């Protein structure tokens, strides 16, 4: 009912009578399965047998959220069974592994289905309250492998990125709750930061990775207990990284947004917890802005038709004016010139450029 990327030509061929009959039969079989499951749930038959009927149905239709709820109702009962009553039926660990497998195979086919991601989250939380701490830790670490696979298949899947942040938070929580090892493993934040570097190197255009990086940096610095110099060092490294990226492909939006992010942390009104280097002086800021403008103008020499360059120059110039209205590094007529180029190169956003023009004054 909300289909994406399905060609109409392929979908609207007229069904033969034979095909129609076959489809009617499929409908009967499907409805029969739905009715069976619903009837057993009404009777509160929360058994292994019903669980496998549910599995069958979810494999046919993982979007059927009520059936996922039914699955949880059954599992809650089965997980709580006394070992004596359970006999040789599935143990809690087996039940949980089973659902992890089910959701994994479904996610491979339906990577954007909210309900599958939700169930996976639910079953792991359930596992944590049911199983031994060691098993739980093993399960959560396994989740990182799953997310790696999902992001390998689609590096922008925002479900997978959200889930990644969630899993990391769980692992951090478990880690901080356990006794520190003699040789403490590398913290999750360091590893996650490295992961974004790796993803960016594979594909510069992966804004999801750049975004995650921007979210990790303040936490990374806190965890490293970084002093002023260390913070500056990291900021300078990031600037160098993004400038190389800009040079590689100045037409990619993702890269410019990350550049914009770095610039936003310089602003005096940047929220304290988002700043990379606190306690910057006006002189420090001036130097950074001047350096960026110079660098971007250099690229302009080869890429006079890249609108992002002009947009960025205008943006940095506006930031500059906030801290030093009297700078002689550029003039209003430079700004007007960049704007004219934007109007030339980017007619889609004509209305926006007109307003920017008005804000520049006469």
């Amino acid at each position, binding site marked *: 009912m909300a289909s994406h990327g399905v060609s*109409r030509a392929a979908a609207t061929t007229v069904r033969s009578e034979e095909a129609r009959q076959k489809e009617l039969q499929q*409908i009967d079989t499907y409805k029969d399965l739905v009715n069976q499951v619903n009837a057993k749930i009404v009777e509160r038959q929360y058994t292994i047998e019903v669980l496998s009927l549910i599995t069958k149905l979810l494999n046919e*239709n993982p*979007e059927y959220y*009520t059936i996922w709820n039914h699955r949880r109702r059954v599992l809650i009962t089965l997980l709580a069974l006394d070992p004596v009553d359970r006999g040789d039926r599935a143990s809690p660990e087996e039940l949980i592994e089973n659902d992890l497998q089910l959701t994994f195979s479904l996610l491979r086919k339906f990577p954007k289905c909210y309900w599958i991601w939700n169930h996976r989250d639910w079953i792991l939380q359930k596992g944590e309250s049911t199983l031994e701490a060691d098993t739980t830790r093993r399960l959560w670490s396994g989740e990182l492998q799953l997310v790696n696979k999902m992001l390998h298949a689609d590096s922008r899947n925002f479900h997978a990125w959200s889930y990644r942040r969630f899993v990391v938070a769980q692992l951090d929580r478990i880690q901080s709750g356990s006794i520190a090892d003699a040789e403490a493993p590398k913290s999750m934040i360091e590893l996650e930061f490295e992961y974004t570097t790796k993803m960016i190197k594979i594909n510069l255009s992966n804004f999801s990775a750049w975004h*995650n990086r921007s979210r990790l940096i303040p936490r990374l610095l806190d965890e490293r207990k970084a002093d002023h110099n260390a913070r500056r060092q990291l900021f300078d490294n990031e600037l160098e990284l993004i400038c190389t990226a800009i040079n590689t492909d100045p037409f990619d939006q*993702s890269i410019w947004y990350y550049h*914009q992010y770095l610039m936003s942390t310089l602003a005096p009104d940047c929220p304290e917890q*988002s700043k990379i280097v606190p306690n910057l002086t006006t002189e420090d800021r001036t130097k950074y802005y001047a350096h960026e403008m110079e660098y971007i103008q250099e690229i302009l020499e080869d890429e006079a038709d890249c609108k992002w360059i002009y947009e960025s120059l205008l943006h940095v110039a506006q930031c500059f004016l906030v801290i030093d209205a009297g700078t002689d590094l550029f003039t209003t007529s430079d700004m007007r010139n960049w704007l004219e180029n934007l109007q030339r190169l980017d007619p889609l956003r004509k209305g926006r450029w007109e307003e920017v023009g008005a804000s520049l004054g006469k």
Partner: protein
Amino acid sequence: MALVSGPGRGGMSDMPVEMRLFVDKHVRYIQSLDTRKDELEYWLTEHLRLNGLYWGLTALHLLGHPDALPRDEVLEFVLSCLHDNGGFGAAPGHDAHMLYTVSGVQILATLDAFDELDRRVPGGRQKIGQFIAGLQDPETGTFAGDEWGERDTRFLYGALNALSLMKLLHLVNVDKAVEHIQSCANFDGGYGTSPGAESHSGQIFTCVSALTIAGRLDLVDHDKLGAWLSERQLKNGGLNGRPEKKEDVCYSWWVMSSLANLKRLHWIDGRKLTEFILQCQDPELGGLADRPGDMVDVFHTVFGIAGLSLLKYPGLAEVDPTYCMPREVTRRCLGK
């Protein structure tokens, strides 16, 4: 249903062919949706039935055919999805969830049926309000989708949307909800599904709309977010949902509604977007798809048409950018 001023549908045949909207085909397409019971897809999408009805009904209202679906049958179906706890499921026998409760309320509002609801289900409106209010997390201000607890800014928006239509916003802590939205904000001016998540046009729609309902648009950096949203327009006129992604008709709605609330709709090229949306029509059987040449569905049909309404396409009824409902309906419910 009054049509907005400007040339009526009769004038549309004078339009150049690439600017034509096939109103009658779309009406027939929507009417046909409930007659497809011999297709497996009909049964596999039962979990979207109530959303589908809201999408179809809204599209029909915007197209100027509010009576194309039988009112009493629609009302009957909506009420058959209402649970004792005040929540709606997607269809009879499906569990109650925020997503369907909002659609249920939106349909009742569009049908002007709140009084009928209270007559047939004593205290009905109040019950629905309590169901929604019960899903707010008192600590963070956000909302869960149902008793199982999944949280997402979609549910927060849904809650404020439905409660405001029923004049029951006082049942929840709006300030806390606003605080939560703030915690989902990113440096680019946009919002994600939860704190720390990447900006995404769909979530921006939910957050900007929720802030509009809460009367707190002052918290949004209009120029920064407006700039980000305007960059969603691609050369072919279509809009994408995030940087470096493909265009898609449903984003016409998520992006444009937010631009409209920020009074920045003129920051994109409306003519090119109109042409793109119109190319996504099925000119023979009606309906709109995500992209030209793809299979149509009612989801992209309503968001395409609502987008055209924001673009002031002639003959369409005015849409409310905050609610994705006919403006006439929200004016009646909200009294403004």
